[in-house]
């Protein structure tokens, strides 16, 4: 049970902070309205086109977001590989554990080629064009 105490404490702290911030804001914040502030939070760019009357939402964002995630995860996957690629050295510069070496290089190239195939598909099918 001891294990869960810090978690509970953290949850209470986090929840408390969220409620506190939202509750305190109306009392302490300045109130100067303008049009941009009333817009949805979109980094200042108007979402185009607007769904009218709850109609179909354009898939462009969706596609872009998914592509972003795919390549994002690819990069993340590359990190541990890059770190373990070379043999591990001790302070004296001697190898104390073998690296992944050539095998992993080939595997990683294959992985990249695989993702590239999908990339090529998206590109050729105009998935990267905005309009």
């Amino acid at each position, binding site marked *: 049970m001891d294990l869960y105490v810090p978690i509970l404490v953290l949850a209470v702290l986090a929840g408390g902070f969220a409620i506190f911030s939202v509750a305190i804001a109306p009392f302490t914040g300045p109130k100067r309205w303008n049009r941009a502030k009333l817009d949805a939070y979109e980094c200042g760019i108007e979402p185009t086109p607007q769904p009218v009357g709850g109609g179909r939402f354009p*898939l462009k964002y969706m596609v872009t977001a998914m592509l972003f995630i795919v390549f994002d995860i690819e990069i993340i996957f590359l990190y*541990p590989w890059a770190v*373990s690629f070379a043999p*591990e050295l001790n302070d004296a510069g001697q190898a104390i*554990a*073998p*690296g*992944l*070496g050539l*095998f*992993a290089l080939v595997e990683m190239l294959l992985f990249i080629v*695989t993702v590239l*195939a*999908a990339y*090529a*598909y998206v*590109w*050729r*099918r105009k998935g990267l064009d905005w309009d």
Partner: protein
Amino acid sequence: MNSIPAPTIEYGTLAPLLVVFGAAIIGVLVEAFAPRYLRKAIHVPLTLLSLAGAFALVLVQVLRGQVSTTASAVGALAVDGPSLFIWGVILVLSFVCVLLINDEGHFVASAAAVPGSADEEEAESAGGGHTEVYPLVLFAVGGMLLFPASHDLLMMFVALEVMSLPLYLLCGLARRRRLLSQEASMKYFLLGAFSSAFFLYGTAMIYGYAGTVSLPGINQALARGAALDPLLMIGLAMLGVGLMFKIGAAPFQAWKPDVYQGAPTPITALMASGTLVAAVGAVLRVFWVGLGNLDWNWRPVIWGVAALTMIVGSILAITQTDIKRMLAYSSIAHAGFLLVGVMATFGTAEQNASSLKAILFYLAVYGITTVGAFAVVTLVRDPGGEAGHLSRWAGLGKRAPMLAGVFAFFLLAFAGIPLTSGFFGKYAVFAAALDSGTQPGDSMGGWMAALVVVGVVASAIAAFFYVRVIVLMFFSEPSADGPAIAVPSMGTVTVIAVSLLVTVGVGLYPESVLGVADDAARSLFIR
């Protein structure tokens, strides 16, 4: 800092997988670079050759006696005898399904276009259907191969997703009745994602209990006799939800009729045969390899699921008016029959091997008969697509006696009439279940017998609706504006002929498949 050791990969053992996935990736490149008019001409041989090649590689392993007895790919996969048998079955089934897929007119020209819109008309008039179907099918087949061969739960989850994602898409690609198809796709996706989440959640819980996701590791943790932890039980239940969803056992069967009805029929055939085979294979592996030491706990629960599935499947099938929905419920009932067999895979190795043999046999013969039945469904057409409503099938026996006869035969095989393969399938599974009840130390002896009784009653109810369709086809007057019987292409003819041949052949000579299944089962899942 911990370094990652370089893994060893048994390329020879995994070759069938690599061939299928490799071909799928080449298929994606074909989609990217080949001009539209060439794509199908490249895809068809590529897909068929890769499936045939993978099958040949499976055969090579079996014939050279090189069935591996240890896990491959650093314990992620187990390519053992049952795996290879299931691979062989899946590859044959998917090969036949691809022949069906080749037929013109099953797939929509532009899936993204709104049904009935100008976009759609334009795409329609440009001709052809989505050729992405081929790489998608290959990915799905790859996932199906991976699923029952996964040796740890994470790998199994990945396989589950690789298998399911392309299928979600494929379901939405029917050319006719677009809305129904899109609805099917959406429902399948939502519910599939929901159940996958359960599976993943269960995996996490079990990891919490056992400290590993490797199936044999879990079993060892169970053997160490840790107290029956709620964590384990909840994890097990969640895992079960994910698996039972995929095979369509009650109460997780609701998606099946909607999806089977909406999906393009060749894809339905692939799901009803290949996916079921793969999922049952995974169930068998999880329960035997991972939970073998827990059979006192999971067997009573599976008992209930099996009984419920058989009853729900066969009773609900009676009031169906759509042929594909009826076949979907029949598939649910068959999933129940298969679970009866799963109940018998516990205890000693011999006990497991004999039950496993029965299930493997059932899977093989049921799969091929299913594909044949759906192939026939593709041929009975209305102006708006396939003639799904059963009333349209009235009198088919008078208008197309050959086709109706073949379909009737498949239905009889589903019903398990002697001299069809279905009879021996059911007989083998029920016999294995009864046998297991007499094993020393089985506390569920009487329960097994009761389950078989439920199974037999469900079979009788099922036989009723199969025979009803036969009666409808042969003893009703055909309506004047009855459905057209499409002239079958060579591919469809081959599919029906092969299915018929296997259904008849195995019915007369069960030993042909039973022997292979026996060899495969004897080598057991790697534990």
